[in-house]
């Protein structure tokens, strides 16, 4: 079962390593983890994508809640939610493929944000599946580099994670 867990945690040195340490010490899975400060500079917002049985997910949320630095926690997958991931991808270009890559990037609603004689760098946002599909469409042979942000998520509607 894939789960997206959102956390508000104290924006303090060491808070991230407490979360990461908990996952490694107890053998839990981290598929992706993103973290950055919120509009309230004393708080960080973290999104963790993990996998496990119902019992393991229950333990993960309980153990996270037990960390002193964790202020609040929400399992986004329990309700309607939106997830997004951002990717920067550098693609090798030739006279033959430049047009195709531009078109492909338009189809995926990406933007070419850097150009050289032999490369395009494309910025693309969406679900993980969409980013995978773009990589597939471009073809691995032409990809020089990819950087993915990991998933950020938010609940749909009026439900929100705040203190």
């Amino acid at each position, binding site marked *: 079962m894939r789960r997206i867990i959102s956390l508000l945690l104290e924006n303090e040195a*060491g808070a991230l390593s*407490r979360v990461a*340490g908990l996952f490694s010490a107890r053998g839990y899975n981290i598929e992706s983890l993103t973290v950055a400060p919120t509009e309230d500079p004393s708080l960080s917002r973290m999104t963790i994508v993990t996998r496990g049985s119902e019992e393991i997910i229950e*333990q993960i949320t309980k153990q996270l809640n037990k960390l*002193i630095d964790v202020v609040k926690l929400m399992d986004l997958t329990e309700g309607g939610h939106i997830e997004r991931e951002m990717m920067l991808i550098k693609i090798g270009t030739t006279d033959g493929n430049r047009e195709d890559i531009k078109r492909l990037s338009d189809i995926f609603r990406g933007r070419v944000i850097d150009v050289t004689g032999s490369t395009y760098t494309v910025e693309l946002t969406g679900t993980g599946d969409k980013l995978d599909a773009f990589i597939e469409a471009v073809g691995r042979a032409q990809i020089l580099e990819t950087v993915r942000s990991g998933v950020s998520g938010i609940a749909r509607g009026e439900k929100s994670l705040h203190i």
Partner: protein
Amino acid sequence: MELTGADIFVRCLRDEGVEYVFGYPGGAVLHIYDALGQQDTLKHILVRHEQGATHAADGYARATGRPGVVLVTSGPGLTNAVTGIATAYMDSIPMVIFSGQVPTHLIGNDAFQEVDNVGITRPCVKHNFLVKDVKDLATTIKKAFYIAMTGRQGPVLVDLPKDVTAQKTEYSYPKQVTIRSYNPTVKGHTGQIKKAVKLLLSARRPMIYTGGGVILGNAAEPLTELTRALGYPITNTLMGLGGYPASDKQFLGMLGMHGTYEANMAMHGCDVLFAVGARFDDRVTGNIEKFCPTAKIIHIDIDPSSISKNVKVDIPIVGCVDTVLREMLALLKDSKQKPDHDALQAWWHQINDWRSKDCLKFDTTSGLIKPQYVLQKLYEVTRGDAFVTSDVGQHQMWAAQYYGFDKPRRWINSGGLGTMGFGLPAAMGVQLAHPQDIVACVTGEGSIQMCIQELSTCLQYQLPIKIINLNNRYLGMVRQWQEFFYEKRYSMSYMESLPDFVKLAESYGHVGMKIEKPADVEPALKEAIKLKGRLVFMDFITDQNENVFPMIPAGAGLNEMILL
């Protein structure tokens, strides 16, 4: 008036009501030691190894319910303390550890005696802090004690860079602190409590199973009252001994791997299991697939993550065991429903049948000293009223089986981590807390040598601990497993070149005794207790081949015990 960080440290501890600090000096904590040396309200106990400091503070905490306090220097001072911190963490013992650190401008530079104290201890503390500014010192210390003592208790580390202890600021100690991200639950959910009482009263084959949470949560009194009101059988975990009087007829003894036959069979056969402040540890459940197959389970615990961690629970109640049990008692008194008398009588009949196997019997005709016999005699000679610490291994199980504890906080042992070397330093903390009481340290020739250096501390502070060394010239529990499961290939479980413990005790300034015959056991114990102000090291030369029974082998269920 502005005070230095070191003076603030001392003032904070005094204002927190700390009586003893267990520690060892070193470069990074010299400012603090200078401040400590210029006052005499806060007493410092100088141990001989930092592991000893943590176990002593731990013993003090277990025996009193107050937080143990440790002070060590940076680098090796802290790494030596880690075993004791992890020991306290596994058993949820409230402790505050202060570690020295290199000055802030050197942190991360691989400076002399630098390690990442906060990083090294992170997985074995409830929380930890690095104080970077003296202005934060008093509040951080207050927070550390608050976190250590509330919710599921545990050790908290405060790392103190040397320059912070030299900086000056105004001192004021906060009366209380709030931490927005930390609000432990105290009161249980009333609806759940009502459901639990209803289920308990409808039981036909009930069983009460209680753990260390009852001791830590000071809930022995409501537990005893509730158990007596219901008339149900009760068992304690290794950590829970003393939570219910062992001499009472409703008590079935300890459960688990080396628990009694009647306790384990009653667990296996019960239809309602009432778990109180216990965490379904693997040494208790045996094979989880075979655990309590017919039981509905009620579980009270202060830590939500303990609930349904190993065993799925039907009625979970998160809260302080004391508060929840008292609420249950009140409901029980008002309830028209009463336990099913006939069903209960049939259940007791069955239990007494199991009991009649007398699973703790042992050979009393042997010409060799049986370790069980020593513990029986210790119980008699001390009238069951001593504080008993233990190390880890066979002697620990025998002490748990044969010394019946009627009161909480009398049985002090490393249950979760199983730390050899715990017993003697823990006994120091207990003896300091209870100077007038008998403190016995039950140990073996393997364990005692792991912190033997603390004999020197015992002399310095005149701690009259009675050491019961069950000397079988083997790492007994390892040998037992090798006998049962490795076709008697006794790999590295022997003890050769043992010291002469009598001379060793004497060279540390204590009394040593060597006891080789069963007839000498009781007189030796009586003599040792008569020597009021002295530490007595009793070296009992015991039967080498004695094993701990009964036993549940790995992978078996609670109903598949090996009896003698």
